[in-house]
């Protein structure tokens, strides 16, 4: 999208909805804003129907605030709690059939490169753990094997939340859920390790309990996928509703899990991606601010 496109045409100021005017005047399009600036600008997301205290909603809000090029980004989503939020997002987005997100993103990225060879167009996949590690794993891994230049973000809420609480590949061992009363018999899938082995040039695990670091990780992942290779970010955002936690405690629960070593913050950067990132001013500037 050209930066001029979202500007209101002269003479139409009166008839444009107040929300749109607010976004054009005070939103992040065309500005270099990030997570640290939240609370000072109009966000790319409106009110959404996700549960009170949802860690996935918090993760999504932080992701949207850290996009390096929001007006030229397309997000491919999948069915799940996050898909209820996308109708309220002011970034171009596509809803794909459950599990197909990386195949759709591949086609889209290739088409955008043909259609706009001189422009940077970021394609981002954002999907739940069920869509990524279970039903969509085939498409996810094949996109990595082919070295598609897309960023895959998994919202790891450790459950199929949107369908009432079945266990997913990312539910922790022993987890008893609404629709998995016997407790999960296998440990969490180690998808970050698989991603690295499958050819991702940048892999990171992070949680919204570290908001600034989450912003930095998402930005780095998107930049690496522009030039170097596929990138993968796994965001630990367990579902308070399905785990029956008081909503106010979700960040503390995340920190507890981190202390117990069950969840670890990790970053893998291939040597080529490292060299590329080191040469980018935009990353340096943001890293210094954090």
């Amino acid at each position, binding site marked *: 999208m050209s930066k001029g496109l979202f500007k209101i045409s002269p003479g139409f100021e009166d008839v444009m909805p107040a929300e749109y005017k607010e976004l054009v005047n005070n939103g992040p399009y065309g500005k270099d804003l990030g997570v640290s600036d939240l*609370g*000072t600008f109009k966000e790319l*997301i409106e009110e959404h129907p996700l549960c009170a*205290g949802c860690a996935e909603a*918090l993760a999504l809000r932080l992701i949207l605030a850290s996009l390096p090029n929001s007006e030229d980004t397309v997000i491919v989503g999948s069915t799940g709690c996050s898909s209820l939020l996308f109708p309220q997002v002011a970034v171009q987005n596509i809803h794909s059939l459950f599990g197909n997100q990386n195949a759709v993103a591949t086609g889209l990225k290739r088409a955008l490169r043909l259609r706009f060879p001189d422009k940077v167009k970021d394609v981002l996949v954002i999907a739940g753990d069920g869509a990524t590690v279970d039903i969509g794993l085939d498409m996810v891994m094949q996109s990595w094997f082919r070295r598609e230049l897309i960023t895959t973000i998994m919202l790891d809420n450790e459950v199929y939340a949107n369908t009432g609480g079945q266990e997913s590949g990312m539910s922790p061992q022993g987890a008893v859920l609404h629709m998995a009363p016997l407790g999960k018999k296998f440990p969490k899938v180690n998808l970050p390790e698989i991603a690295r082995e499958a050819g991702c040039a940048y892999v990171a695990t992070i949680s919204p309990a570290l908001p600034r670091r989450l912003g930095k990780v998402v930005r780095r992942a998107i930049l690496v996928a522009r030039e170097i290779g596929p990138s993968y970010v796994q965001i630990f955002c367990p579902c308070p509703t399905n785990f029956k936690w008081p909503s106010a405690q979700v960040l503390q629960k995340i920190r507890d899990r981190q202390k117990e070593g069950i969840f670890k913050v990790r970053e893998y950067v291939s040597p080529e991606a490292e060299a590329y990132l080191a040469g980018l001013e935009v990353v340096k500037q943001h890293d210094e601010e954090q």
Partner: protein
Amino acid sequence: MYVTVKVEVEKCNGCKLCVLSCPDPNVLAYKQEEKHVVVNEHRCKGCGLCATVCPEEALTVSGN
């Protein structure tokens, strides 16, 4: 029921942890000139996360 978020402005140190921890957008904002956080209660779902993360105990959420 309506949610109320009370900000004790004199306690706020401007760390913005509450702003960065709220799962809902455009609810909390930091007012640079006044040097404290403000709340748009119409958009708040009352989850209480902001009060939990505030190091100064400047926020009270009630009426969820």
